[in-house]
């Protein structure tokens, strides 16, 4: 698509003359009517402004045509947080956003990064608009359920008939045999807990996923002491369904040995 065919309705904050050879770092897209400037809230304090084609705008800053990379972890963390803060500011102002992944840079090709971005917005306008509309009134939440492995191991030990029978036999065994019985007992309890984990996972997933628009299963994180993460979900939730989700999580939290963490709301990073 040539730029001349974009036609009326195309408007943007004009780039500074000395930034024509600069890349455009893109934070997110939003339905933006009027071009706007958000001030120096970008990565490393860069000025963030909008590049708008028809009713679709990209939040960008002008910068060197190189991806951000560093060995300094604190610096990297600052960049990533700055990226998110711009996305969040746009989200609060325009309601719905399509967040870009970190380090999305439009190259200053022969026609310049600004025009390349405008042309891309023009070509992709309809499909991007549809994706944006699909997220209207929705937010992403992280839901994590951890369980207390010691609590559930005790429960298995108390209720599993095979474990009970074996426990009774241990007392009457010689020391050597008792040791072997105990090993077998531990393995039985471990298997019982694993089976229980699979059951709980299914049950929790079903209870939570029926309260949200979309649920995506994430890798669980490393256990902390007796508590192990059983379920880690990214959930896309309509604003009207949030109270229902919170009520469900309250019920799960009130179960002995289960602990719930709810994080968010965020723009729909995991569903773009």
């Amino acid at each position, binding site marked *: 698509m040539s730029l001349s065919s974009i036609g009326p309705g195309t408007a943007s904050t004009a780039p500074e003359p000395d930034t024509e050879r600069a890349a455009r770092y*893109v934070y*997110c897209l939003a339905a933006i009517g009027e071009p706007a400037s958000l001030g120096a809230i970008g990565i490393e304090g860069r000025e963030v402004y909008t590049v708008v084609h028809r009713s679709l705008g990209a939040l960008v800053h002008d910068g060197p045509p190189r991806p*951000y*990379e560093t060995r300094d972890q604190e610096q*990297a*963390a600052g960049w990533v947080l700055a990226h998110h803060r711009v996305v969040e500011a746009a989200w*609060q102002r325009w*309601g719905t956003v399509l967040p870009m992944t970190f380090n999305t840079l439009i190259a200053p090709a022969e026609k310049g990064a600004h025009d390349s971005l405008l042309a891309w917005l023009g070509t992709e306008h309809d499909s991007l608009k549809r994706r944006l509309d699909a997220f209207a009134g929705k937010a992403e939440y992280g839901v994590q359920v951890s369980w207390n492995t010691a609590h559930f191991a005790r429960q298995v030990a108390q209720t599993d008939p095979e474990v009970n029978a074996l426990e009774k036999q241990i007392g009457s065994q010689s020391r050597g045999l008792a040791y072997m019985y105990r090993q077998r007992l531990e393995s039985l309890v471990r298997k019982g807990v694993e089976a229980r984990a699979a059951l709980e996972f299914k049950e929790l997933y079903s209870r939570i996923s029926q309260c949200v628009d979309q649920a995506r299963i994430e890798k669980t994180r490393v256990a902390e002491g007796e508590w192990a993460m059983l379920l880690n979900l990214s959930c896309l939730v309509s604003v009207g369904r949030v109270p229902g989700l919170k009520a469900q999580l309250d019920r799960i939290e009130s179960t002995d040995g289960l602990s719930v963490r709810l*994080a*968010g709301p965020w723009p729909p990073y995991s569903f773009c």
Partner: protein
Amino acid sequence: MPQTGATLVDLLDRVLDRGVVINADIIISLSGVPLIGIKLRAAIAGMETMVQYGMMRDWDQSIRANATIGDRPLRGRAASGITA
């Protein structure tokens, strides 16, 4: 009531690994750029502790104060975050 604190580690995963990826030749390629995410989790976890203890609150507020357009400030951090 479940905890509702948004953690920076959760955010980090999303900002680095998720979001829209533009598949077009207008994009500067990231091939050969080492992922900055690997050790970032530890750094972020440290920062989260700082935020919890209020050490970064001033910094955070000053960043938000900058996000002002003319005399029309951006809406504050809404509890729901959704304004659509």
